Structure formats: C-alpha cells, structure tokens
C-alpha cells in the first residue's frame, strides 16, 4: 500500500555531489500522548497526568528540549525526576551527528519505560516538516523545525485542555534568539536552568547542570592563561605537511606538569614526545587525542624525577606555579634530553565522568569548589555546587564540561554521589568505575532475551544432543561457587579403556548471536570477582541457575569426550552437545576426602579416583614438555557474615583435586583449539602466551645469582627444570620466592584471531595451540569458541560476524582489555580489603622477605598475608641516612647494614590514612635495627590484641 501523501524533493549538497532523495510526508504519525483521542495510536508513551512539582509550571506539561539542551544537559535528563519528554526527530538526528555517546545515552533513556520519553518523527509529519528557506542556515532551519513541532503539539493538545487540567508543552532552549522567536509565536518557553531551578526539591539537579558557554559569570579573570587551540582544519593541514604530529596524550602519574604523547608509527616505530609545563600541556587531559608541535632542539628537556602534585587551594595567582616550573627546568641534564613538544590543538577529547572527592573551598559561602579525581593523571576540576557540606567526605562523580583558555582548571559539573569515602560499597563502586568495569544492572532489553521460567528441556533441544543423563558426572569447584561451568566423568569401557568426559555449560544455547544479551556479554567480556562480590557477565538466571551445572538437575552441556588408555594416551576425541545430570557438586576438599577415604567405593568416588590417576600422568607429561609451574600468592579473606568486614586473611592452599580439574580443563581447551583451528583456519579464536624477551629475566637471574643458584632461561623447559632444582639449605621459602619473581617476568597471555597472527605458541603451558573453552559462564571468549565448535560439528548454524576475522580481532581486543581491567580491579579490591583488615588490627609486627631492592627503598613481601609493601629510606622531614645502591647485586647499603634480595626482615605494618583518597599500607623496619631508620617494636603487642578480636 502506498501511503505517501505529498511528495517533496530534498536536495542536499555535500562536496561536489548532488544527492537527490525522496522524502515522504505522512499523516499517520501520532502524538504519543495518553490524553489524545484524535490519534489512532496503538500504544502511548506520554502520560496524561504529567505532573512534576514546579514553581514555574503548575500545570501538567510535556517537555520539548532542543538539541543543545540534550547535548549539554544529558546528565539532568537522565534523572528519574524528568519524565514525559518529547524528543523530536530533528533533535535526535542532530544529536546523532554531534555526539555518539550522548546519542547512545539518549536512546537508552527513550527505551526506558518509566521515563516516558517519546520520539516524535517530526521530519516526516505532514504538518511539522519545513523546507529550508533561501539564506537560512541548517541550524536555523532546525531551530525553526523544533518551534514548528512545538507549536503543532500545543495546538494539538489545546482542545483537550478541559479534561487534562490544562496539559501544555514546554519548549526548553538555552539559545536566546530561539527563545525570543518562540515567545513571539506564543509558545511556552524556558531556559533549561530556569526550568530546573523552578523545580521543587531540586538542589541536586541544579548541581548537575552543565555550565553552558553563554554563562557570563565566569570566575576567572580575563587573563589568558593558555594559548588558543588551533581549529581542526589547520591541525589537519599541519599533520599532512608534517609540522604537527598526532598522538594520544598520557599525563604523568607523578608530576602534573609533565606528560608524554604517544605517537603510533608504522609497525613497531612508535615514539613518545615529552611535554613539560602548563603552557605546553595546553589544557590536554589524559587520553585525549592531540596535535603536537615539536619544539626546536635547544628547548628540549629531560623528564624530571621530581614528584609534583597539584595540591593546596585553588591558585589564582600563578607566582607559585612559576617557581614549580623553574624547579622542573633545573633538573634537565644535557644528555638525558628527549624529544619535546607542545600541544597546539585537541583532535578528540576523551573525557569520561571521573570519580574523586571534593576539596571544599575555604570560603564558607562559596559555591565553587575544586574536585580532585582519584586518578592522579586527571587535573583537578572546578565545579559549582550548593551542597558542598554534604558532599565533603564523599566519593562523587564529576564530568568535565569545558576548559576555557583563561581558566587554570577545567570546569565541570557534579553528576552523582557514590557514598561516603572509605565505606565498602562506595570504594567498590569507585574501583569498578575507575577500571571501566561495566557493572550496571542488566537492562530490560537484555533481560528480555532470557528464557522464560519455568524452563525445561524440550524435545527440540534433544534433537541434536546426546543424552548423557545416566552418566555419573560430578563437578568440583571452590566452596561457595554458584556459577559451575564444568563437570567431569570417568568410567571404564568394556574394552578396558577409560572414557573421560569434560562437560561444559552450554551457554551459547541461551545466548544467541547478535541479540542484546549477546552484545552486553560481549561488551562485559568477563565476570569480575571482587572480594565478597561478583560482577556477572550474564544475568544471574543464567549464571547461577540455567547454565550452572548443579547437582541433580538436568542441564544442557557441551561435552568433550576422550577415550584413553591407562597411560593417559588419547585414542579418540569426540565433541557433542549433550544433556547431563550431575550427581554431585563437590568442593575441592570434599573431592579430596572422597579420594582419600578408602572405605568409600561408590560410582562418584571411583570416577574421581580414575580422573585423579589420569590427571597425575597428564601433569607429568606436561611438565616434561616444559610447562611452567609458577607461583603467586593469592589470599582469601574470611568475611564476617554480618558486617562483611574481613576478619582473617589466609593464603589459598592448593590440593591435588585442584590440579586434577585443571589438567582436564587444559586438555579440553587444547583439544578444542586444535579442532576449531583445523576447521576455521582464518577465524578461530585462540589464546597465546608469547615467550618473554630475554631482558625480562634480568631481575630473576641477578636474584638467583646472589644465592649462587643458576637459572637457565633459554627455553621454557630449561627454566622449569632449573626452578625445580633451585633450593637453598635452611631457606624453604626460597623456591617459592623465586617462582614469584619468575611470574613477574612473564608476558600477558592474550586472545587473538588465528587469521591475524602466525605465532600461536602458549609459552607457560608449553602447548603449540590453546584456547579457552571451559568457562563460558564467566568469559565471553569461551562463548565464541563454543559457537565455532558447534558449527564445526554441525550442531549449530554460523553467522557472518563469526567468520569475519577483522570483527573477531576487534572483539579479541575488547576481551583482552576487559580481562586486564578485571585483573586490576581484582587486585585493587584485594588491596582495599587488606587496608580494611589492617585498619581493624592496628599496628602489626610481621616477618617478611626482601623481594626487590630499589634506589631508595626495599620492597618487602609478607608471606603470611601475601602482602607487598615498600620501606622507604628517605623521608621528607627527616635527614636522609646515607644510602648506597649497588646495581649489580642488587644491594642497598643503609648506614652500616646492607640489604640483599631475599633477606629476612621484620617490619611493622600500619594503615596510613593521612590522605583519605589514597590510603595505603605503610611498612617500617624493626629488624635489623639501624639507628635513625628502623622503628622500635610497637608496645601494643598484637598478641595481646588478637584474642579479643577473635572472640
């Protein structure tokens, strides 16, 4: 059916091409209001009773924001208070052109049902479409289109006024000219600030208002502090002609007046350019993409080793600053000079909302305050708030709005508060945000793709599956684990061989490619485990119920089944989708007990014993091939069940069953990797672990040499063997320490797409090929591998993105990034809990080992807590003792005592909370006693304190 009524040609010139497009106008576009009786709409979005408590508009009303309001005030629009908003298509399209992230946020709001945001397709409506008039700019036309649409709405709703208590539309704009014209045509129009300030109970919203440019009440003097940024056209010309270079701005963590710009070159030759001084940094913020002009060679400087933090009150006079900059210059030695440049323009801002704390201004009544971000690389931000007294001591989120050239600090606005600093929930939120871990609750769109409960296996599910429900399958996991993604079985076949099966939760059955659930999981990449909290990659219904291979329920699985002889040689490998019914979910300790308990001989125990026997052989074979056994101290907190405070620390202990499960997971991963690579040479998702460059081993070699132990690092095998024999009499912990050091030398293992790389080797496992198959509930890579394998065995169909190596490769990059970030977040979480633990303990006395020796400090490892800390020998206030550093040893002589690596020392541990934003564990030496350096053993002996706490 043809529904076009009028038919207009829309001509758009871009470059030299003339593009002619049809533009159909319709009269079946409805207003979306519940109150309207005229429109024949199926469902309505806007409420009839659109009330919001306001001094300005006492009647129910719908809001129509213009483009700039949406672009700048999206934080406010996101607030649950703001409802019943009409987003015109004109606005939506403009937003889409101007800012992708805001467009995404706007779309998210529109999808949220409680917000009642309605998109009115004004450009295709017969009465609201307007043509650009001669001499009118595109922006003016759009403004006019917005006014016309607002006018249409107000007239459309007019006849209904009687039944709706005078329902009106209110146009929101910050543009003076636009506002005036709208008023002339008889529309209700307000400035956004005006409107928000008119709301009752709004103080929080007012703070979230972004400072718009036409606000005349800028605080700073008119003095220009920074050179003007060049316009984009000149930057591009400059980059083309080679006078500027483009790169990513990376601020220094230790010195706020220094940064480097990382310039991505062809292949390997990436360079870094040093930027020094406020003027040269020119308002660039960490992670921005900037254009840099190199300075003449005689102005090049060396990176300073001074630690400078931008502290104190807001600096309005810059006398102090110049002094600091001078301090920088002096340290520049001739030889160490590096390529230096200055920022001339910003190509792309990479601002995100930042976590941090407020420095309350000294003037009590002041509404302008400085905000210090948690990340030291981000400059302080000036914000305006009236609730400084409540916000002091809280962790808050602030977004940057702009950085005018006459302002020392960027201007920003308050987004929201996370809670009191130092509180567990707040800190957890901060570390999730700072590590870019997506942790919001799953959206409705994502949840809509979950299977409907009650869920049961249907006959259709069974068509391509093998029924393995009768097998004695069991799972072995750490205690308290609810996302069980693997289960095992082992049984003797009639021919005397053993059948071993690894059954992995069939997550790809529930998560279909391309839907919202899949996209969300792909974005999250991994489940993040923090102390006492888990940030799921897939919604809980899947992770802890439908996919989790719990005991005595029927679950879908992807099975990898081998036939092996008693020497653990694989005779046959088979992959199949299956249905299993796990007979028991055991913890490592329970499984170990069953194996050891000779009186038991049920099927599960027999199966476990068979598995254990094979695993031992497999492990031996693997180690013979040169797999590394490395060590890192992992700690576990005993968390109080009520207060959720850590009450005890314990290093994780490993049992035989841990390695039993691990062996079979490795075997499954390797088998699957081989299979998918054979099937899909170009687009298999694999995991590699590159061999570290020899220079990485320097620390390890030096350390070993100091104890007269030889370590060979030529191959993984040689390293593994030499680590095995490395022992020192009377020092049982030496080997573990050595392994910890060896771990630090390693490279990061990464996912990659087989079509984009040629080196597949996994160094640590000594396997030529490897992938991740066994944890699809908590890793997205495994889901892709499942899909590939399912296609390879004909159990599922393929889809284009799966076979596109470039898309795969992009996905791998995201997964690698998320994995890295989740590790950092985990470490940060452990560190935070360690701090909490020591906070409750007061000062402790512990024994530790020197792990590294640095120029002015030693790094001490406390095995009992798996804790590392630094003991500094030069402090600001005290006269520094004579410190001599010997790089070859490495050894450090302080006064008369010389510290070597692996030395046993005693230290006191306490919490340093002088800086509430960056609390840290402080260690001080108690033994050996060095006058002026070591501290006396604290009086409050922890032994006396401990029993009290345990009770």
């Amino acid at each position, binding site marked *: 059916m043809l529904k076009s009524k009028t038919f207009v040609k829309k001509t758009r010139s871009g470059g030299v*091409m003339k593009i002619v*497009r*049809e533009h*159909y*106008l319709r009269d079946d576009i409805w207003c979306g209001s519940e109150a309207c009786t005229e429109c024949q709409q199926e469902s309505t979005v806007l409420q009839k009773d659109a009330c919001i408590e306001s001094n300005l508009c006492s009647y129910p009303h719908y809001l129509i924001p213009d483009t700039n309001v949406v672009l700048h005030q999206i934080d406010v629009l996101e607030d649950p208070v703001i409802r019943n908003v009409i987003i015109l298509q004109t606005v939506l399209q403009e937003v889409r052109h101007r800012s992708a992230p805001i467009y995404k946020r706007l779309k998210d709001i529109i999808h949220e049902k409680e917000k009642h945001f309605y*998109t009115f*397709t004004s450009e295709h409506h017969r009465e609201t479409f307007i043509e650009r008039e001669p001499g009118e700019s595109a922006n003016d036309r759009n403004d006019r289109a917005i006014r016309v649409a607002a006018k249409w709405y107000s007239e459309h709703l007019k006849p209904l006024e009687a039944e709706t208590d005078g329902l009106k539309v209110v146009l929101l704009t910050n543009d003076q000219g636009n506002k005036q014209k709208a008023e002339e045509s008889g529309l209700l129009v307000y400035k956004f600030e005006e409107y928000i300030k008119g709301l009752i109970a709004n103080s929080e919203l007012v703070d979230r208002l972004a400072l718009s440019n036409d606000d005349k009440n800028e605080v700073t003097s008119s003095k220009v502090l920074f050179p003007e940024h060049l316009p984009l056209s000149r930057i591009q010309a400059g980059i083309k002609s080679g006078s500027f270079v483009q790169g990513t701005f990376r601020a220094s963590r230790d010195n706020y007046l220094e940064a480097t710009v990382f310039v991505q070159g062809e292949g390997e030759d990436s360079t870094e350019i040093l930027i020094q001084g406020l003027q040269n940094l020119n308002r660039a913020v960490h992670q921005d993409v900037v254009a840099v002009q190199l300075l003449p060679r005689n102005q090049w400087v060396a990176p300073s080793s001074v630690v400078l933090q931008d502290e104190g009150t807001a600096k309005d006079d810059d006398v102090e600053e110049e002094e600091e900059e001078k301090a920088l210059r002096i340290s520049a030695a001739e030889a160490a000079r590096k390529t230096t440049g200055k920022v001339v323009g910003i190509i792309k801002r990479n601002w995100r909302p930042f976590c941090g704390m407020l420095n309350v201004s000294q003037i009590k009544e002041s509404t302008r305050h400085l905000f210090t971000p948690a990340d030291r690389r981000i400059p302080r931000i000036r914000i305006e708030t009236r609730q400084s007294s409540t916000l002091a001591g809280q962790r808050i989120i602030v977004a940057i709005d702009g950085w005018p050239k006459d302002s020392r600090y960027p201007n920003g606005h308050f987004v929201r508060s996370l809670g009191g600093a130092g509180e567990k929930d707040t800190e957890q939120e901060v570390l999730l945000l700072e590590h870019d871990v997506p942790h919001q609750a799953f959206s409705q769109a994502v949840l809509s793709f979950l299977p409907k409960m009650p869920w049961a296996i249907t006959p259709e599910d069974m068509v391509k599956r093998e029924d393995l429900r009768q097998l004695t399958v069991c799972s072995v996991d750490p205690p308290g684990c609810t996302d069980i993604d693997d289960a095992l079985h082992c049984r003797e076949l009639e021919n005397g061989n053993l059948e071993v099966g690894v059954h992995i939760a069939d997550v790809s059955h529930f998560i279909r490619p391309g839907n919202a659930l899949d996209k969300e999981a792909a974005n999250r990449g991994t489940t993040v485990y923090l102390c006492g909290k888990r940030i799921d990659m897939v919604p809980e219904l899947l992770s802890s119920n439908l996919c989790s291979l719990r005991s005595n329920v029927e679950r879908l699985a992807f099975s990898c089944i081998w036939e092996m002889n008693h020497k653990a040689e694989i005779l046959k490998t088979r992959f199949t989708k299956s249905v299993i019914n796990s007979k028991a979910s055991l913890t490592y300790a329970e499984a170990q007990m069953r194996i050891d308990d000779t009186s038991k001989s049920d099927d599960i125990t027999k199966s476990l014993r068979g598995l254990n026997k094979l695993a031992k052989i497999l492990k031996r074979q693997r180690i013979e091939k040169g797999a590394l056994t490395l060590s890192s101290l992992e700690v576990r907190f005993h968390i109080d069940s009520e207060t959720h405070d850590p009450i005890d620390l314990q290093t994780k202990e490993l049992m035989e069953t841990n390695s039993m499960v691990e062996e079979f997971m490795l075997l499954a991963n390797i088998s699957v990797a081989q299979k998918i690579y054979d099937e899909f040479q170009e687009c298999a998702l694999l995991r590699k672990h590159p061999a570290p460059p020899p220079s990485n081993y320097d620390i390890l070699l030096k350390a070993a040499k100091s104890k007269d132990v030889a370590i060979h690092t030529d191959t993984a095998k040689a390293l593994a063997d030499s680590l095995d024999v490395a022992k020192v009499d009377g020092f049982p912990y030496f080997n573990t320490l050595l392994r910890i050091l060896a771990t630090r030398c390693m490279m990061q293992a990464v996912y990659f797409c087989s079509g984009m790389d040629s080196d597949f080797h996994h160094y640590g496992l000594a396997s030529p090929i490897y992938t991740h198959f066994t944890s699809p509930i908590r890793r997205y890579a495994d889901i892709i591998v499942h899909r590939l394998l399912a296609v390879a065995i004909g159990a599922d*169909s393929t889809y284009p993105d799966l076979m596109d190596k470039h898309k795969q490769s992009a996905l791998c990059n995201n997964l690698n990034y998320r994995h890295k970030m989740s590790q950092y977040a985990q470490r940060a979480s452990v560190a935070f809990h360690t701090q909490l633990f020591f906070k409750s303990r007061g000062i402790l006395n512990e024994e530790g080992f020197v792990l590294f020796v640095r120029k002015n400090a030693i790094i001490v490892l406390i095995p009992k807590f798996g804790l590392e800390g630094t003991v500094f020998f030069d402090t600001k206030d005290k006269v520094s003792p004579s410190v001599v550093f010997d790089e070859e040893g490495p050894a450090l002589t302080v006064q008369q005592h010389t510290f070597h690596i692996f030395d046993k020392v005693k230290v006191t541990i306490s919490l340093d909370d002088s800086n509430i934003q960056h609390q840290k564990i402080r260690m001080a030496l108690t033994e050996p006693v060095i006058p002026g350096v070591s501290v006396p053993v604290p009086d409050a002996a922890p032994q006396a304190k401990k029993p009290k706490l345990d009770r």
Partner: protein
Amino acid sequence: MAGLELLSDQGYRLDGRKATELRKVQARMGVFAQADGSAYLEQGNTKALAVVYGPHEMRGSRGRTLHDRALINCQYSMATFSTAERKRRPHGDRKSTEMSLHLKQTFEAAVMTQLYPRSQIDIYVKILQSDGGNYSTCVNAATLAVIDAGIPMRDYVCACTVGFVDETPLADLCYAEESGGVSSLALALLPRGGQIALLQMDARLHQDHLETLIEAAMTACKGVSKVLDEVVRQHLQEGSVLTGE
C-alpha cells in the same frame, strides 16, 4: 560522521516510509507511436523507459532462430545523465550485459514464446534516472511495454528489491539504502501463480533469513502488480473512450 540510520526505532526509513511500503509508482503506456509497444515507469526517483518491437522475423544472424518458440532479445542501457555524476556508459559493458541477460531470462519465463516460432521479440529498456532498484523498475516498465505491444504473457512479471536491516526486510530500496551496505535481493514474480521468474542476490546473507526475505519480496511484488494492473486498466479505458466504444 556516523553512517546513515536505515531504520529508526520508530520504524521509519530514511525517506519516511515504513519497512514494507513501496515507493510511489507512476506509469504510462503507449508513449511512442512508432514502436509496437512502449511504457514509461517511475518508481520514486528511478525512471525507466521500455520499448518493444515484435514479434517479427529474425533479423541479423539467422542461425539463432529457434524452431519452437520466439527469441527474446533484450537490451539494457543507462542514460549518461541518469546519475548524479555524468558518465559515458558505453553499450556492452559488463554490468549492462549482465542486466540484459537477467531481463531476457525474466521475460522468457513470462512471455508465451511458443506461440511465435522462428520469430524475434526485441525489448529495449533505458534508465533515465537512477535511484536504486534499476532491475526491478526495468522489469516493471518492460512488462507494461510488452502488454502494450499485445504480446500474450502468462501473467504480469513484477519485480522488487528487498534489503535486510536489523532483522527486518525493507521493501523497494532506494539508492541510499542500497549503498548503505545492506544485503539486498531482487526478485521477479508471476504474482498470480506465485512462480519466481528470477531471483538474484550477490551479497552475503544468513541462510536462516532467506525465507523471510523472499516472503517479503513476494508481498512487495504483489503490491507492484496491483499498481500495474491499475495502470493497464486505466490505459484500456482511455483507449476505449477514444475509439468511442
């Protein structure tokens, strides 16, 4: 700049149509008196002219004569001024040869060639303005021209393109949509019997979606056939008024 949003959340396409809606089709038959049959057809901004000669004796090489049916000879061309950029389009380039071949196959399936053994039917189609869906516009124009020439056909042949965006089939793609990286499919249908005269697709598409796409294409073709039928009836009525019957 972000690419074009081909289908908005509200279900509107770039030009304001909904997913299943066709562009405005306008047509006239009998535009040239000297030819045996002719028609002019607009499908949105795509405009095509079709002219039919025959059936007549074989011309040129007699060796191509078919003893049991008529030979259909198709020639497709695009006017130099048919696109935004003026471009010389010589006859016999690869693209137009392929298009000619497709048209030939389409009409061999529809025209009752067995009624005219040893003769030849010539169909010439020219795109005057191109805005996506060239093939289908040509087929629709040629159908009208063949009808105008009075050559018996099994049924109208109606053609339409469909594309696949966000799990939704879009009917009758315009140029902006075609060039927006959409997997598109062209289908020529004999609507009454539901037989497919030609199906052509050279993009990648998952097999699972093919069925829905063909389904959508058939619905669209049936929509086209209604419009064409209207045009033919209108034309006949005008004709009969003129002859005074």
